[in-house]
């Protein structure tokens, strides 16, 4: 006959241990290095080919006229952080950092130029 309560021994042990919760924001976990966070754009390497804007799945990356040349502007409200732009760029002008705390108050505030 099986008695209910098979988990009792483990329960008794765990009752006295510390919880496994990470009390964010007082404690933080370090993200791994290749986490796809906010992107960094090196404007000096850009050749205005437009491949990043063509391949962006969510129209977050669009080409605009800046200083006479076409440059990409990334709108983080639409970005899915897929890093396809970083891959398509032939000159490695876009790099994904590990910055992920990107909340802001107004729409249109988070732009990477």
């Amino acid at each position, binding site marked *: 006959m099986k008695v*209910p*309560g*098979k*988990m*009792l021994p483990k*329960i*008794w042990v*765990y*009752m*006295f*241990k510390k*919880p*496994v*919760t990470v*009390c964010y924001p007082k404690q933080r976990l370090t993200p791994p290095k290749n986490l796809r966070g906010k992107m960094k754009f090196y404007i000096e390497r850009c050749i205005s080919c437009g491949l990043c804007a063509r391949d962006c799945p969510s129209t977050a990356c669009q080409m605009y006229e800046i200083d006479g040349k076409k440059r990409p502007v990334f709108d983080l409200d639409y970005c899915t952080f897929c890093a396809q732009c970083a891959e398509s760029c032939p000159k490695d002008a876009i790099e994904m950092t590990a910055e992920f705390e990107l909340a802001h108050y107004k729409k249109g505030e988070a732009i990477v130029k």
Partner: protein
Amino acid sequence: MGSFACVWNQMVRGTGVENIDPVLALIYLLIFPGVFFLFAFSLFTEYMDRKLYARIQRRVGPPFLQPFADLVKLASKEDIIPEKAEGFMFTAAPLFAVAAIFAAYLYLPIVTTTGLHSFNGDLVVVLYLLMIPTLAMFLGGWYSGNVFGQKGGMRVASLLFSYEIPFFLALLSPALVEGSWKMADIVSFQQAHPLALVVTVLGFGIAVVSLQGKLERLPFDIPEAETEIVAGPLVEYSGRRLALFRLARDAEMVVGAGLISVVFLGGPMPLLSLQPVYLSWALGGVIFLLKTLFVVLLLILIKSAVARIRTDQMISFAYKWLIPLTFVQIFIIIIIRYFGGI
């Protein structure tokens, strides 16, 4: 004031609290260990319940004042009576529950061998009063006019048949050991013979399990199973009435656990006579608190180790296992009394 003292002494003649200052009696009634203490203690047991449950699951759990904050928040929300509900019974059900619990509480011996009032048979009265919150929940669900509420109310009523009987029978056993229905006599008997606990250990276990069913906690919380019946009979309650129901449920846990600790573990025993009298009250209160918290700890351990069982499984569990075991316990007691000649 003198006439009040006269009336008071007349009322409490024959019980343990006679010849006590009426002011002290009022403090007993209202503050400690009266209404205010019950209120505070039930919030504290809810805190302990949720915190230990969380720690068992390796989470952090709520802060200390969380149950109080929940009650305050609920009481400040809008109180809606749905169209199909009957206003009077809908409002009266939570009030019945709270009133019955507080009345039952006043009979428990917390600080001395007697409660505020003690007579032969008060154990039975407390047991009956403890049944009223369940009935109030059934009424509340029935009169709420919602299909889910009615189904939940019917489940509550059908579960009454399964765990009330073992609860009553299990609490019968210490009364059998002592030979009287008066809780004061049971407590003094246990003070005189501390080994009486060993004889009733089986009844203690059965009483704890049936109390878990009475309080409708896991594994017996079918009426309020959130994944199936969307909060059962309480589904249409909101605001102050829901706050009253929750308070009634917490207080029921305290009174039920307190009843078990009084009847099986001896309540405020060992009693030391200290002067002035409120010091001995304080010591008795602390001991009662510790014993009740021990019973609540057992309830929490049961809650976290098992899954929820179905209505029909619960009824068959009660009739196949709990009730026969109570018969075994009563049989043991009869044999020991016959041979021991106590």
